[in-house]
Every structure is written in C-alpha cells, then in structure tokens.
C-alpha cells in the first residue's frame, strides 16, 4: 500500500514537472511571424535524387526586401526516423536567397529555413513540399 502511494505521488510530481516544461515551451511567440516569405522550387514537382533549387524571398512587414540574413536550410520528412538533408543558403540580392539540395526519398518533405536576420532577430520558417516523387513514377 505504502509503495503504491509513493508510486502515485511520484507519478503526480513527474506529471506536474513535465506539464510545466510543456507549457513553458508552448508559451513562446515567434517574432519571425512578421516576415513574409515567398518560395519557389525548381523543378516542380521535385524528383528523388535530382538536383533541386529552392528560391526564397524575404520581405519585412513594409514589403521591403530583407538583405543580409544568415540562413540555413534543412529538409526533413513528414515521417520520423528518416535522414534529413541540409543545404547552404546563398544570398542572390534583393531579399532573394537560393539553396541547392537533393531529396533522398519520395514522399512529403518539410523545409526548415532558420537563421538570423540583419537586426539579429532569430528567424525560422517551415515550408511543406508535398509529393516528392520517384523518377520512374513521376
């Protein structure tokens, strides 16, 4: 009985600690929400193993292009447990950034673009790339 009560108390404390961690994590706001991001991908739809160029254009809330951002790009699959792909992001001017990458598997990918803006603000955006196809089934 005593062991059971101790176990229950332990579970309750653990639950409270984890709840507070979870709530602390979800309570944050993302300042990069104010940044407008437009993107294109070539070729579209993308094919597995083929070189792909992603173009991103960043504008602030006044529609001014954002230059001088330091960005990195990572592609992850919608299914957990798959290897991510990473790509260097190069600025092409006028708020346009370019990344070259190759998708390693067919399916749905999510491109995570993150980095810092010229004013030092952290930046993070997710772009869904649905339906990356195998070459033979495209």
């Amino acid at each position, binding site marked *: 009985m005593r*062991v*059971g009560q101790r*176990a*229950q108390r*332990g*579970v309750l404390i*653990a*639950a409270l600690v*984890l*709840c507070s*961690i*979870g*709530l*602390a*994590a*979800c309570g944050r706001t993302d300042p990069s929400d104010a940044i407008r991001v437009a993107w294109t991908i070539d070729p579209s739809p993308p094919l*597995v193993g083929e070189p792909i160029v992603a173009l991103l254009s960043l504008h602030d809330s006044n529609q001014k292009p954002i230059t001088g951002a330091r960005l990195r790009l*990572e592609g*992850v*699959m*919608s*299914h*957990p*447990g*798959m*290897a*991510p792909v990473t790509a260097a992001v190069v600025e092409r001017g006028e708020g346009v950034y370019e990344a070259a990458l190759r998708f390693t*598997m*067919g*399916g*749905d990918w*999510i491109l*995570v673009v993150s980095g810092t803006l010229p004013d030092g603000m952290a930046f993070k955006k*997710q772009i869904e790339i*649905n*339906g990356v*196809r*195998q070459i033979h*089934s495209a």
Partner: protein
Amino acid sequence: MNILRVPVVGSFLRWRHARPALQLLLLLIALVIVLHGLFGPQLAPRNLATVLTSIHWRGFLIVAIVAVGNLFCTACPMVLARDMSRRIVHPALRWPRWLRGKWLGLALLVLVLFSYELFDLWSQPRATAWLVLGYFGLAIVIDSIFKGASFCKHLCPIGQFNFAASTMSPTELRIIERETCRTCRTSDCIKGNAQQRGCELGLFLPMKVGNLDCTMCLDCVHACPHDNIALATRTPGAELLERGRRSGLGRLSQRGDLAALAVVFTFAALVSAFAMTSPAYVLEQRLATAIGARAEWPVLAVIFLGGLVIAPALLLSGAGTMTRLFAESRRTLRATVLAYAYALIPVGLGIWVAHYGFHLLTGALTIVPVVQSATVDAFGHALLGGPFWGWVGLQPGSVFPVQLGCVLLGAAGSMAMVQAISERDQPSQPMLASAPWLVVILLLTTTALWILSQPMEMRAVRFLG
C-alpha cells in the same frame, strides 16, 4: 529452461513489484509522449510523440516478442493506470457473454491501422498524443465498469496484435509439475488469494497452452503457493499445433474469431507495409479516379477491404477447397480453413518484423537529437549538447538483407507449420494437402518481398491537392 531461475533476471521477475516498476517506466514515457505531442513542436521528426511511437515503441515491441515474449503487455502502463483507478471505482459487472471473443478487438485493430493511414498519424504529434490519451481513457473506463482484464482480453487492439505475435515467442508461462497442480486445492493461479490476485484473463495454469491471451503479467507466478510456475523456453509456434482444449480459449479449431485474428494479422502486415511505398500512391490515385472519390477514406476503405477481407477470403477458401479435393477429405471447408489459418502467423510476423525493424534500424538514433532539442525547448540551454540532427541510423539500403531474412524465416516457419498440420489432419495425403497452402505462403512471401523492395514514399496523401 526456467527463466525465473536465472540469476538477476529471474530474481527481478520474481520480485513482486517487478511489473509495477516496468509499468511505471512506460507510464513516464507515455506521459512524455503526451506532453511533447500536445505542447512540443508539431514537426513529426522533431517530436517525441511521433518518434517514440512510430520508431521505437513499434520496433522494440515486435523485437521483444520475437526475442523474449509479450513484454510490452507485461509493462503496459494502461493496466497500471486502471489499477490506480480501481482503488476508487470498483467494477461490478462481468463482460457481457455476447461480446466475448476477439471480434470486437479485431475490429478495433483494423480501425487503428485504418486510422493510422487515413489521418497520417506518423506525421501528427498532437493526434498521436490524443490517441495515447484515448487508449488510457478507454482502458480505465472499460475496466472501471467490468471485472477482470476485460479491456486486455476483449478490446485492446494492441493486445490482440501481441497475442497473435507472441504465439511465435520463445518463452511461455506454464506449470512445472502437473502432479503439484493435481493435488492443489486452492487454485490461487486463477482465483488469487489475500495477497495476490489470480489471472485476470481467466487462464487456469494447469490447462493453459501457449501465449494466446497471456499478458505475461506474472500474477500467476506470484499467486502460486507451490512455486510451480515457470517462464519456460519453448519452440516458437508449436502451440498453434495443439488441438486440445485450452483454458480461457477452448479449441483453436472451433474459434473462428482467433483464426480471423491470425489472418488479419498476416494480411495487415502486407497492407501496412504496402501503404508506405510508391506504388500504393499510384494505386490510390487510380482507385480514386475509378470510383470517383474526392476524399481518401473511400479509397483506403477499398484497399483495406480488398487486402484484409476479399483477398484472404478468396485465397483461403481456394486453398481449403483444393486441400479437400487433393486429400479427399471429409472435413468441411470451414474446418479446413480454420485448421490452416494459424499457419500464416509466422510469415505475417516475419513481415511485421521486417517493416517495423526497418524503421527501428534506420531511425533508432533519432531519439538522441529529439531529446536534446526537447531539453533546449524546456530549459533554454543545451544541457545534453547538440542537437545532433545527423544521428539517424542505418542506411535504408543496408537493412534490406535483414528484412529479406525476416520474411524468408517467417515463410519457412509457415511452411513447416502447414506440413505439420497436414500430417496431423490429413495423414493419408499430407504432401498433396499441403500444396495449396504452400502456394498461398509463396504468394504472400513474394508479395512481401516485392513490397519491401519498392522505393518508400512517406507521404500524407493530400487528396486532389
């Protein structure tokens, strides 16, 4: 060999609080899954809810069943939760007689597999968290109303899956000396005593055969006053050849629901693996066009109906008819199919191991960066370093030989079982009687190998999108 007599492991298992300790561990993991699923990042590869369930829980569950036994039922945190709730609410009713059997659990198992595909649960941390909460809620509600382990025995879809798979486990709980049981007057293994409850699933140990309906909870071990129960090693699958009456189940040859569980277990392995390949997407598109579907569920329903009902019905009734013809058997078609249906379990298990083992081997290390990332989210500092997002697992291509071995080993087991059933039931023409079933197993094996060799396409289908 009696594992309960092995040093350290045996001592731990014989410890009265061994099960609660394991359950507490899984309960804490379930809590982490729920909290991170609800409040963590909603990017599936970065969330513990989706990573732990899709990669680690499924993988370790199936590996544990093959290597040891039904360990995840042993450590089931839902039973711990309902044990706690039963301190407050005491169930008064018995599970209705008309609902007994596996049909309801089987329907729930299919529903879970269907929902997994329809709602792309692998990519939905929050939905995964709600599913876990739903499981807990259902287990607590059912077992607060009905006595015994009603949820485990009659409803739990994971439990039914584990029961079918654990028929191939290398261990089982069984009595040591029959004479000791013959002279026992208390039957504590099923009735329990003041200190320890008996088997909640209604398995009377002297008449218990194999692992069907056994959650390996060890209640019988702790309850037996004669220390007459062993966790013994055995030949995997041999229990499926037993014809006799078994406690809590009756005769396998008279249980259409258990045979259906074996068939669905096997064919669902193919459907589940197929759903994540490139040809599955093409098939879905073609079916959608053919039936004019504008949503995914009718298309998935057709695939599930074809894969879990129509194809098995045609294959098994065809093989049964041929066996009756070849062996000039007087058995009915139903009796013939029921006898051979259990022989499909080994190949089915081989396919499940190949599928879930693939995800485990190729994604095992992803837990490291996800935990590191969750720590950063929670505490604002990289207390555990990283995150090392490059940590994933083996290359997918390197896992195929392992998958091939699992499927072929399963197929060999099924073929051996078919032959043993034929020698038992059709002694005059065993080879001829086996032939149609060997063809069915070859067909299943070929299909499985074709599916596993297809390029994977991890997609959450956006219909008409």
